[in-house]
């Protein structure tokens, strides 16, 4: 039994909360779903091992050369940036959630110690979240190539610690430079940009150099090989650690934990002060005064649409999520620009990317407008038919999709009218399908629950994802041969119809 008030005792408390939070997220708060979730995870693990067998199995006995070091290092860097992105989100949440802040600060225990444990728990959770995705690949490498690959597990732990250290430093730096009020939004955007920037940068380089979106073409290029340092360079230590070099592994772990310890030691004494400042952001007596407005003549339907657009534009979570999606549209835009100039055949690649992006964006927007209604009683007691409210909300979503995607489709249509038509139809159908799924599975929630919207219905989440993928595939095939697209289109229609049949609102 641990002594109450000690760091170990608090670590147990934090771990218990994190575990219950995760279980709650996976089961939607329903105990009876636990068995199904366990079976689902087991199936996922088996499936990922099969995928890993085909993806990395052949690298198990790879000979150590510069090419291999570049590949491993790039993969690690990419994963690490995603971890930094997740850690920044976690740190922002830790700063801005009032939760037990008053209790901790009012208790007789050393708050500094508790906050240090809290930050260490973030590092642990970041590494733990990465393990289920990385483990199948590492396991396959160990099975095919021997125990030397076990070092990769240590590297993941080190990456979690290093990512958290950087996230702590960046969040605190933002806090000091921008202040508590702006940090939340900027940190969200920065987290999204960090997660996407590296892969997008590689894709853009690949497009400009080789005319494809494949980053492997760039990494294997003679130019990169010439620039890469010798195999003995400290830059390759993480890659050497993955390959089983114990000295390199010890070095990487020591460096990462030193960084984390430094960050925690510097921030823990001020964590409470930062959190109190952040928590009081929403309670300041006077906010920023906006401009005076003149009440305009409007219909209830127009009033609803305008309200949705204003709220969407002012939603910090949506801004970061949408920014991420928009960033992923940058490579196709570059590809489009390059194809336009050279008359290349890469336009077929663009169509599914646009269609998929539209489906995903529409799903998020539809959840915010339909389920994330912060004043449901007001809208429900307004003298307007419920159907009109829903129609106005759907119009608000689809208008945004049209505004976002129309310029790219217009340029695409100039390059190839057929591709333009296919992309336009695909974008509209994917957006309409995602919106319809959100409509059928609508719940009453707060907009602030947007990040956890998947919890409300796994069926809706998967149906939305598979419908976007399906329509993207159908559009890609349509761009080449319309007749061949009938089968994937019917399959996707089946997915959407299946979602409708399983939805709790068949009558909607």
């Amino acid at each position, binding site marked *: 039994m641990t002594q109450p008030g000690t760091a170990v005792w608090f670590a147990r408390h934090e771990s218990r909360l994190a575990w219950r939070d995760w279980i709650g997220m996976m089961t939607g708060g329903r105990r009876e779903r636990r068995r199904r979730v366990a079976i689902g995870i087991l199936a996922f693990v088996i499936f990922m091992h099969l995928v890993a067998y085909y993806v990395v199995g052949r690298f198990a006995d790879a000979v150590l050369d510069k090419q291999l070091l570049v590949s491993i290092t790039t993969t690690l860097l990419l994963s690490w940036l995603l971890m930094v992105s997740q850690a920044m989100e976690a740190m922002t949440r830790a700063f801005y959630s009032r939760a037990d802040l008053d209790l901790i600060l009012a208790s007789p225990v050393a708050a500094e110690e508790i906050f240090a444990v809290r930050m260490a728990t973030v590092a642990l959770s970041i590494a733990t979240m990465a393990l289920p995705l990385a483990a199948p690949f590492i396991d396959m490498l160990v099975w095919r190539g021997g125990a030397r690959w076990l070092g990769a597990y240590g590297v993941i732990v080190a990456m979690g610690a290093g990512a958290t250290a950087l996230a702590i430093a960046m969040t605190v730096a933002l806090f000091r430079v921008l202040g508590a009020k702006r940090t939340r939004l900027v940190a969200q955007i920065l987290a999204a940009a960090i997660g996407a920037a590296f892969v997008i940068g590689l894709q853009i380089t690949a497009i400009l150099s080789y005319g494809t979106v494949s980053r492997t073409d760039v990494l294997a290029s003679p130019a990169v090989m010439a620039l890469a340092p010798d195999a003995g360079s400290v830059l390759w230590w993480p890659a050497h650690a993955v390959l089983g070099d114990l000295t390199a592994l010890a070095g990487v772990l020591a460096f990462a934990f030193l960084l984390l310890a430094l960050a925690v030691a510097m921030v823990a004494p001020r964590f409470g002060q930062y959190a109190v400042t952040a928590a009081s952001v*929403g*309670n*300041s*007596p*006077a*906010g*920023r*005064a*906006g*401009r*005076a*407005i*003149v*009440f*305009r*003549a*409007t*219909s*209830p339907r*127009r*009033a*609803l649409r*305008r*309200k949705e657009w*204003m*709220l969407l534009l*002012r*939603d910090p979570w949506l801004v970061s999520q949408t920014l991420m999606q928009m960033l992923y549209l940058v490579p196709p835009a570059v590809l489009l620009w390059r194809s336009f100039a050279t008359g290349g055949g890469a336009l077929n690649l663009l169509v599914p990317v646009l269609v998929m992006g539209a489906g995903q964006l529409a799903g998020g927007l539809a959840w915010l407008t339909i389920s994330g209604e*912060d*004043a*449901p*009683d*007001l*809208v*429900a*007691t*307004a*003298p*307007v*038919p419920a159907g009109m409210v829903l129609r106005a909300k759907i119009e608000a979503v689809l208008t945004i999709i049209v505004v976002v995607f129309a310029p790219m489709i217009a340029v695409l249509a100039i390059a190839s009218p057929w591709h333009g038509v296919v992309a336009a139809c695909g974008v509209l159908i994917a957006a309409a399908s995602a919106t319809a799924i959100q409509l059928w599975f609508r719940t009453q929630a707060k907009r602030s629950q947007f990040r956890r919207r998947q919890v409300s219905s796994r069926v809706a989440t998967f149906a939305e994802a598979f419908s976007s993928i399906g329509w993207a595939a159908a559009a890609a095939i349509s761009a080449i041969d319309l007749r061949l697209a009938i089968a994937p289109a019917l399959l996707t229609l089946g997915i959407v119809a299946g979602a409708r049949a399983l939805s709790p609102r068949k009558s909607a």
Partner: protein
Amino acid sequence: MLQPVSPPPLPLALDIRDLVKSFDRPAVDHLDLAVRQGEFYALLGPNGAGKTTTLRMIAGLIRPDAGSIRVEGIDALADPVAAKRVIAWISDEPMIYDKLTPEEYLEFVAGLWGVAPALAESRAHELFSWLGLAPHARERCETFSKGMRQKVALAGALVHEPRLIILDEPLTGLDAGSARQVKSVLRERAQAGATIIMTTHILEVAERMADRIGVITHGKLIAEGTLEELRHQAGNAGNAGNAAGGANGAATLEDTFLALVAEPAEAA
């Protein structure tokens, strides 16, 4: 000789007949309730008595299992849109949009109720002034305290000049100043002819403001009338001596209320 012509009787502001609603158990059980136009009616009852469910059914937020609801003569179940035109609903948890300013919020509400923009704008500024919101009318509501948020919700509810104002615990969590502003606006609306139905656990508010008080428990209306009439009913229920009698014979509403709700609870 000509008989004096009496004016036609005004329709009741609210006429509920045989209203039933069950969730896991009956929440509202064959409830009859009539509220006259221009009346300030307080609906009291212990937690779980069915007050909020009743008000939510009147506001059109949930549909009853059986019974009828007429608002200003309109069948609210057959024509909910027409009924909603004259109703305002305010709950204890103010539901407003954090990212809108009070001005933008009221413009949106006015749009939903189809109020002419010039009229809505002048009413909005009048309400802001009454409720002390004028200095904050252009700030986003995300920075507001509970009291300020409740006042924004109240301003939104009143911008379309409703004839029936339904309030569910509107004073919960408000400081003394905010509570006084809210009460003053409600009093002004009642004087202007609006009908007000309010639930509250602050019995002093009901005692001071209400023309009539209804006591509901287990989904049934067990007593109704002015405070004096309730005292009589509590006395007839056999509890006057202990609870409703008070030290000098003039029972407070609290004494009376406790005597009324204790009787069925004890019988159960």
